[in-house]
């Protein structure tokens, strides 16, 4: 008790201090953030912790003891771990004793911690900390050590810091008052000079999950987003998501969404991928982050920089993106092609999905008035499937069993999409003796879908061997798959008959489940291919005797009734079953028997009349099944009351031969189409739509971006690599995507950028901290330059000469930060803005450029001729612009020239 009061005293003192520092505190509420386990037990009285119920798992305690024993350090293992089971079982007295001893340990730890400040040896310090964490993992409440732990936070040793943070996050939720005490330290740490410490402090701060702390969190968060180190920024971005889940209003007030969109052009790829993930989750209801062409192309051009898992965030965006035109679609596919060679199967699968969706958007549909030569959606999808076949098979054969399982499901879905594409790889799907049985089963199901006239004989032979497999499910599946090949008649000529013969052999195999499955398969086969009945008629009567499983028995009975005309013994076989009616348990068999006997009666009345009467008697008296009873009555009344037996015959003897290609219940094309939208998710594995297994709150609808591109076709966008990015540009091939304005539709007017809306358009190339100052889309409305203009030197000269010098617009010299080192860089960046270079040269003191550009015809089609002079020192830029043709209105001209000047300035942003 002594100890407890002391502890309370400490807390009170510290709380008083804390209250002065931060007055705000709210009730702990909705809490969402990461958390350590082993901490769910808390109470005001530590004593109650060590009771057997609260601590819960004995294993947890054992675990910790093991840790303690194994860990370095001088302290003996706590309590007597070996006897803890005994103590659990013991009564109250032992319990309290046990508690005391535990409490003593915490005290001992405290004593140790107090020496912490004076301890010099770093390893010793770490050991003390480790011990505290071990206790915590064990589920023992060490929150009483909070104050001591707080003192330890001031250290330069990262390992110790991490452990203290861990401790903090663990107890913050249950000890909000205590946790608040350390806010200041954390906020201070988030301004530490070491980026690692900044990042860690930030993560700890965001993981405290205390709504009342939001106001302390948001400022460091905001600061972190502009941190010089990517590690801090990346952690900050995730922190935003944690804050979003904690307090949505605060999140909206701080307008973090806009900042995140801005950060998509962060030079570091891991920051970008986290931004995408966070935006996707925040905008879940709209299907994910807002996409437009500028964003997508920007990300795609950088895709080679992303890490193994980061690349997935970009790949997952592509299905929602609609390429502007065919050309761009193909460019994206070419850019992504190398990803198919990576060893990371998830990236490969995401690429497959991206390819399929691009094919969907750019392929030609029926009724489309496009070029007749351009490929249709189905053609394109087929091409995609052919391209991805080899990588998928490689992954499948080299991957581990879990991945193979997933990939087999994917292959299954792709076969539904493009039947036949995996046919020639059928040997890869042969069952290996060492495969896990769930993989074997998937493979057998798939093999049936791979049958074509060339492969069917091999596949059927392989199935034939699997039928005898020791695994019963396997045997059943093999028979069923064989039946499916015959049913869909994919095996070419003679295949149906040979399968029918094999199935008939299996009837006699004396293995109950195989015979039964074979009978069922034969029943389906006979309906689809009535000519096979000749093969199977002979063994049916004897099969009826030894098939025991209800389904198989019902199938044989069905066959006997349906084709009884041609089977000599049919009525006699059925009669035996009828005589044995009382021993039939299964309703299905009884119903089949009734239907078959009635049918046979019309083919062979004299032989059937008596047994039919007996059957009616039995069946109408049978109360086990309502259905059976009603049917029997129906048949009976039909036969008795009808004046003309021919009418009854025409009702009952309807042929059961199938006229369609497949059974109605096999048609799941709607489901398949829905699943294609969700390819590469759990939907594919479970083969059902997301609403069937995901809670409504967690469903992310699949929404493509708006069809029209909200971007003027000349908006600045180019594959200019961001500064400061690592130079490994050919990791995925140097390919990049540029805009194809020539083919783009005339640009819709850019929407007004309202405040609060996301500025998706102002995509500059500067560092994120300094957004592009001028090139906002709104001001570009009346100027639109053609992407390709050809102008010969002579024409340039004559145009230049045709405009009197008096009309030329001359800008005053504009100071520049640095002069460019060569003309090429300037030309390249101007070109991306559709300002082209006629001639350029370097003089000792200056650079000289002769530039030109032409407006879109819709805007007047005027030529702009520009003479640009850049002085080297002091660096400055002056422009002389002449306008030829185009809009005659002088005010419009002035406006356009001004815009052109702004355009040039922004394109040279790196120098000005």
């Amino acid at each position, binding site marked *: 008790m002594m100890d407890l009061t002391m502890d309370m005293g400490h807390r009170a003192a510290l709380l008083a201090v804390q209250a002065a520092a931060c007055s705000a505190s709210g009730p702990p509420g909705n809490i969402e953030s990461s958390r350590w386990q082993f901490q769910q037990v808390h109470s005001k009285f530590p004593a109650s912790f060590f009771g057997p119920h609260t601590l819960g798992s004995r294993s947890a305690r054992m675990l910790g003891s093991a840790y303690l024993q194994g860990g370095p350090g001088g302290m003996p293992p706590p309590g007597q771990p070996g006897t803890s089971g005994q103590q659990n079982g013991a009564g109250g007295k032992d319990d309290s004793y046990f508690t005391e001893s535990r409490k003593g340990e915490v005290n001992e730890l405290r004593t140790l911690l107090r020496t912490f400040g004076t301890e010099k040896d770093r390893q010793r310090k770490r050991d003390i900390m480790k011990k505290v964490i071990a206790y915590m993992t064990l589920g023992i409440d060490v929150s009483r050590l909070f104050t001591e732990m707080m003192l330890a936070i001031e250290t330069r040793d990262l390992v110790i810091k991490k452990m203290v943070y861990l401790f903090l996050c663990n107890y913050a939720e249950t000890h909000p008052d205590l946790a608040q005490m350390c806010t200041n330290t954390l906020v201070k740490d988030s301004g530490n000079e070491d980026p690692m410490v900044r990042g860690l402090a930030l993560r700890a701060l965001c993981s405290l999950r205390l709504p009342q702390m939001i106001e302390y969190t948001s400022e460091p968060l905001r600061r972190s987003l502009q941190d010089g180190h990517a590690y801090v920024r990346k952690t900050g971005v995730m922190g935003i998501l944690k804050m979003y889940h904690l307090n949505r209003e605060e999140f909206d007030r701080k307008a973090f969404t806009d900042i995140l969109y801005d950060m998509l052009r962060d030079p570091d790829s891991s920051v970008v991928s986290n931004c995408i993930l966070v935006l996707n989750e925040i905008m879940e209801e709209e299907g994910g982050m807002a996409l437009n062409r500028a964003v997508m192309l920007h990300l795609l051009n950088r895709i080679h920089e992303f890490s193994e898992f980061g690349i997935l965030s970009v790949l997952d965006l592509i299905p929602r993106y609609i390429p502007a035109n065919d050309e761009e679609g193909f460019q994206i596919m070419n850019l992504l092609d190398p990803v198919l060679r*990576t060893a990371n199967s998830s990236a490969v699968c995401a690429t497959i999905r991206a390819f399929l969706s691009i094919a969907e958007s750019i392929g030609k549909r029926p009724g489309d008035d496009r070029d007749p030569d351009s490929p249709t959606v189905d053609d394109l999808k087929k091409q995609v499937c052919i391209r991805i076949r080899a990588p998928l098979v490689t992954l499948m054969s080299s991957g581990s069993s879990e991945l193979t399982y997933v990939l087999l499901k994917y292959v299954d879905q792709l076969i539904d999409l493009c039947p036949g594409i995996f046919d020639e790889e059928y040997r890869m799907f042969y069952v290996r003796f060492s495969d896990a049985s769930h993989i074997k089963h998937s493979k057998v199901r798939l093999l049936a879908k791979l049958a074509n006239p060339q492969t069917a004989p091999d596949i059927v032979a392989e199935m034939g061997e699997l039928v005898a497999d020791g695994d019963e499910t396997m045997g059943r599946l093999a028979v069923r798959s064989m039946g499916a090949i015959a049913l869909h008649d994919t095996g070419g000529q003679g295949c149906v008959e040979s399968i029918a013969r094999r199935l008939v052999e299996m009837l006699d195999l004396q293995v109950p489940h195989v015979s039964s499955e074979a009978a069922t398969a034969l029943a389906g086969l006979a309906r689809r291919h009535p000519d096979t009945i000749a093969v199977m008629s002979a063994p049916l009567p004897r099969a009826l005797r030894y098939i025991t499983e209800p389904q198989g028995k019902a199938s044989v009975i069905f066959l006997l009734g349906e084709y009884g005309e041609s089977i000599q013994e049919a009525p006699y076989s059925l009669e035996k079953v009828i005589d044995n009616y009382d021993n039939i348990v299964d309703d299905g068999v009884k119903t089949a028997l009734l239907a078959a006997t009635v049918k046979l009666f019309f083919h062979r009345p004299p032989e059937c009349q008596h047994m039919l009467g007996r059957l009616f008697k039995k069946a109408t008296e049978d109360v086990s099944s309502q259905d059976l009873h009603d049917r029997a009555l129906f048949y009976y009344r039909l036969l008795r009351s009808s004046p003309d037996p021919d009418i009854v015959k025409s009702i009952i003897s309807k042929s059961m031969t199938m006229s369609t290609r497949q059974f109605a219940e096999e048609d799941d094309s709607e489901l398949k189409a829905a699943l294609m939208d969700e390819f590469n998710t759990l939907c594919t594995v479970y083969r059902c739509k997301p609403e069937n297994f995901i809670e409504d709150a967690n469903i992310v609808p699949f929404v493509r971006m708006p069809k029209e591109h909200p971007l003027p076709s000349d908006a600045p966008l180019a594959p200019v690599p961001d500064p400061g990015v690592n130079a490994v540009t050919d990791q995925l091939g140097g390919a990049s995507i540029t805009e194809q304005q020539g083919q783009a539709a005339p640009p819709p007017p850019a929407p007004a950028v309202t405040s609060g809306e996301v500025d998706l358009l102002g995509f500059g190339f500067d560092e994120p901290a300094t957004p592009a100052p001028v090139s906002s889309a709104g001001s570009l409305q009346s100027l639109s330059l053609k992407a390709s203009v050809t102008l010969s030197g002579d024409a340039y000269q004559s145009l230049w000469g045709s405009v009197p010098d008096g009309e030329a617009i001359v800008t005053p010299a504009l100071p520049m930060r640095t002069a460019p080192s060569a003309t090429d860089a300037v030309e390249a960046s101007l070109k991306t803005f559709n300002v082209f270079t006629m001639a350029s040269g370097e003089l000792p003191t200056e650079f000289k450029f002769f530039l030109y550009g032409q407006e879109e015809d819709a805007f007047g089609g005027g030529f702009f001729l520009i003479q640009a002079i850049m002085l080297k020192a002091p660096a400055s830029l002056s422009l002389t612009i002449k306008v030829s043709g185009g809009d005659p209105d002088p005010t419009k001209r002035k406006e356009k020239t001004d815009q052109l000047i702004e355009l040039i300035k922004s394109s040279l942003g790196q120098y000005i």
Partner: protein
Amino acid sequence: MISSIMILNARGEIMISRQYRDDVSRVAADSFRIQVIAAKEASSQPPIKRIENCSFLYTRHLNMYFVALTKANVNPALVFEYLYQKIRVLKAYLGEDFDENSMRNNMTLIYELMDETMDFGYPQNCAVDVLRLYINLGDVKPQDEPEPAQLTKQITGAIDWRREGIRHKKNEVYIDVLESVNLLISSAGNVLRSEVTGRVQMNTKLTGMPECKFGLNDKLVIEKSSEGRKNSGVEIDDCTFHRCVRLGKFDADRTITFIPPDGEFELMRYRVNDNVNMPFRLIPAVQEEGQTKCSINLKVIANFSEKLFATHVVIRVPVPKNTSKSKIKNSFGRAKYEPEQNAIVWRIKKFPGKAECMLSADMELVRTVRPKSWERPPISVEFQVPMFTASGVHVRFLRVYDKAGYHTNRWVRYITKGGGYQIKI
């Protein structure tokens, strides 16, 4: 995203549990234990299990279950890749076959790794070499500690698999070409399936940031460079690479260039389907005489050069389950009837190339009440043949370019193993 990662032991007890989100509770582990771990046919269950609205995706290491729990419609391939990566990281820290004990002894380290490799349910940086730079509790020796600035750059930089400023006294590269032959032969002696999956494992100890160029006798490359010499070169059906390889370059001219990670890594995997050299030919003859006798004759021929030899050859010849007595004669090695495997296991430590050996066995069978036909599982063969590749792949060159221009020692080793090498009888 992933809600939680748990590591359970064979009894289903939680050893580690890291909750990234609040939507799945620890109690979920109980349903997993009951429905998956305690289920009768645990090994035959699919690796994805849905219990109520929560999906469990799991894989195993030794007897431990690594389980990812999620309530969202995740990308399953991503989750498994992450779990594998996780295990790879733990192996790097705790040793190749870390067990329950080493997990417990390094609990704080594991939590640290869990925090760094995943944030709020999304995978972050999982590259072992980079993690090593700033997480060095446990058995891993802290390497020379780099400047903080460089460190964070490493964590997020584009070349996250190698750090700058690595030095080695001797510059060496070890290349292992490991192949595994998968073969399935029907009882009639036809090849149903033959395939080689190969891996190129490297261990690099190189100074600085060297650029490496690696060449195999890939048919496409060889035919391009030297016309006329036909039949040299192997037709590689498909290959995948470690992420350090410049894929753009490979697609353009099929050269494999990369800046390697330091230490061991898997450079590439490939698959060859055609012209596989089968290292062993087996000719079995099985006769069942009535219900009480069965005899098996087997001839094994080594198809590789007499200069080489195979090691660790184990041939499993299945026999009926009701075998009571067996008489085995074999030319060399040791053969024994092992009832628990229902097979005659024939072990040969060293099998010289071009050699032939025979085994003949007569079994007496016990009469069974319900005669059930013998399902005749295939004969399976395990072996290792050093310095032999079944696909014919060999390393043509490895060039190392570095600013320092040092000399590099290179060693190449080939091993072919039997993967699923099966002959139906």
